[in-house]
């Protein structure tokens, strides 16, 4: 569990990190420039060869980086799709509305095809009611979402329900406009 959570924090950095490694490692694994430059003869020729060599290595690295970048962008796009929209609930209810089911079907499609994703399903409530009851209500909401996704074919092991009760409102305010935005299930994606 802890490990998973650590991954969550790193999620934004995953792609960048991989890209950084690819470009940084290149000069280190190629020790030639300094030793070759010490040789007195035909230095210009060697230098040209060297430049050509480095260029091709560079372009390889660039290609690899671009590939990683594309993959990262694709995953990010998917993750964004999953995390973009929240599932909203009626007051003091944990049953899924028709709108909620439509959204969840889209999310389920992504998750069925991308089995590296582990999804934290956060259940939230609006500000009304006690802290205690709202944690149990949030738990029921996260569970309703989880059960729907499992029924759709997503592996339950990759769906982690948690409840935040009324502790993390998305919108501040004491009116229905704010309440309706806060009665939600929110997704966070981590990559295994």
């Amino acid at each position: 569990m802890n490990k998973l959570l650590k991954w969550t924090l790193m999620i934004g950095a995953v792609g960048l990190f991989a890209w950084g490694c690819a470009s940084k490692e290149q000069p280190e694994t190629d020790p030639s420039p300094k030793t070759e430059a010490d040789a007195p003869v035909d230095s210009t020729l060697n230098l040209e060869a060297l430049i050509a060599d480095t260029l091709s290595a560079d372009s390889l690295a660039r290609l690899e980086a671009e590939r990683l970048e594309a993959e990262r962008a694709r995953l990010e796009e998917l993750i964004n799709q999953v995390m973009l929209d929240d599932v909203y609930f009626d007051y003091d209810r944990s049953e899924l509305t028709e709108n909620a089911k439509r959204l969840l079907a889209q999310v389920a499609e992504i998750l069925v095809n991308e089995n590296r994703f582990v999804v934290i399903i956060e259940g939230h409530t609006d500000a009304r009611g006690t802290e205690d009851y709202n944690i149990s209500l949030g738990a029921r909401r996260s569970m309703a979402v989880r059960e729907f996704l499992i029924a759709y074919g997503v592996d339950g092991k990759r769906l982690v329900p948690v409840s935040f009760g009324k502790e993390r409102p998305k919108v501040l305010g004491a009116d229905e406009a704010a309440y309706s935005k806060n009665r939600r299930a929110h997704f966070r994606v981590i990559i295994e």
Partner: protein
Amino acid sequence: MVMALMLAGPTFAAIDTIAVDVGISVFKTMPIGIVPFEEESAIKWPSEAPHKILTRDANLSGRFEAVPSDRFDLVLFSKKRARQYVTGSASKLSNGKIKLDCYLYAAETKDVLLGESYTVKPYEVRQAVHSFFDKVVYRLFGERGVASTKLAYVSKIEGVKQVVISDYDGFSRKQITRDSSINMMPVWQKGNKGLVYVNFRNNRPSLYSIAFGGKETPIFTQFSQTFSPAVNPKTGELLFAVTDEGKTELYRGDMKKGTAQKFLHLKSNQVSPSWSPYASEVLFTSDRGGSPQVYAVGKDGTDVRRITYMGHYNERASWSPEGDRIVYTSMDDGKMNIYTCALDGTDIVQLTSNAGNNEHPSWSPDGKLIAFASDRGGNYQIYIMRKDGSGVTRITNGTENTSPTWSWYFDEKKKK
């Protein structure tokens, strides 16, 4: 409190039955004279002078009505029916300590009914005066007062909910948690040795235990989501809520061993346990009837009975230390208010109304007072009222303060 008494005058005639309205005191309070201490040389008090502390203690106690006077004034005291008064003398010692001689006198005869002496560091003056006040309560009522007790509550510090403790009157505040996630639901361990609370550092609600001056430890880590702690007043064992597979149920656990068993075997969700004063029964909230309602059950988990029927949202009940009533939060039209009722659910009394949201009631150990959180002043702060809803007094200020939980009695400290 003055307002409450003034209200009581004209309104009582109109009321036949005791359908208690908000803010009308059904308490009989005892007037008590309070005279400033004599100071050998002027003392710079770190917070307030002793007579100010005593005045606040008297008015908060639910037992007294302070009759302050600059000097002993028998005419005033007799007019106000103050048959006793408190005062004393204070002197600064060469080692920086302050010597307090505190007395309770019979007003008419000037007989000393109680005399206590304290030699304390300046920052311990409040504690000493509170301790004297509790002795006054004991001398006049034969019961323990709560002036030496404390509150734990949640305070938003730099945007983060942190657990803090303070004296029952809001003074001498100390921050207990310093974690950057969410800290909430503090309750006192048996003997006031530390707190149990909920923390979200692992992005889920989990119970932690902290000993004062010690380290915080996660407890009952065999469960992924735990909250709603309630300490058994006799054994110290913990009832708490566990969420698993979307269902929330009560467990009882031994904090030292870390073991826990399911407390109730019900199909419905359960939260907010509260022990009866002698730990023979437990109150809890269940949604088994379709909405959150308060239920009672024996300590062995059998004989469940429903207590609240009125309204669609009755939650977080807590059993009076006197044993005869429960206090709970009820929500109507999106507003939360505090009610008490008898153990069979009858004789419902609304303690708060028309003043924002009022929630999270917690009894004082003597059962005379209720601490609660209210946003009546714009943002959430902690208030104390008498058990009949009168004498509402705010005891915190600043950024949001919520979820007060009253300590147990502290063991009598040795007098220095």
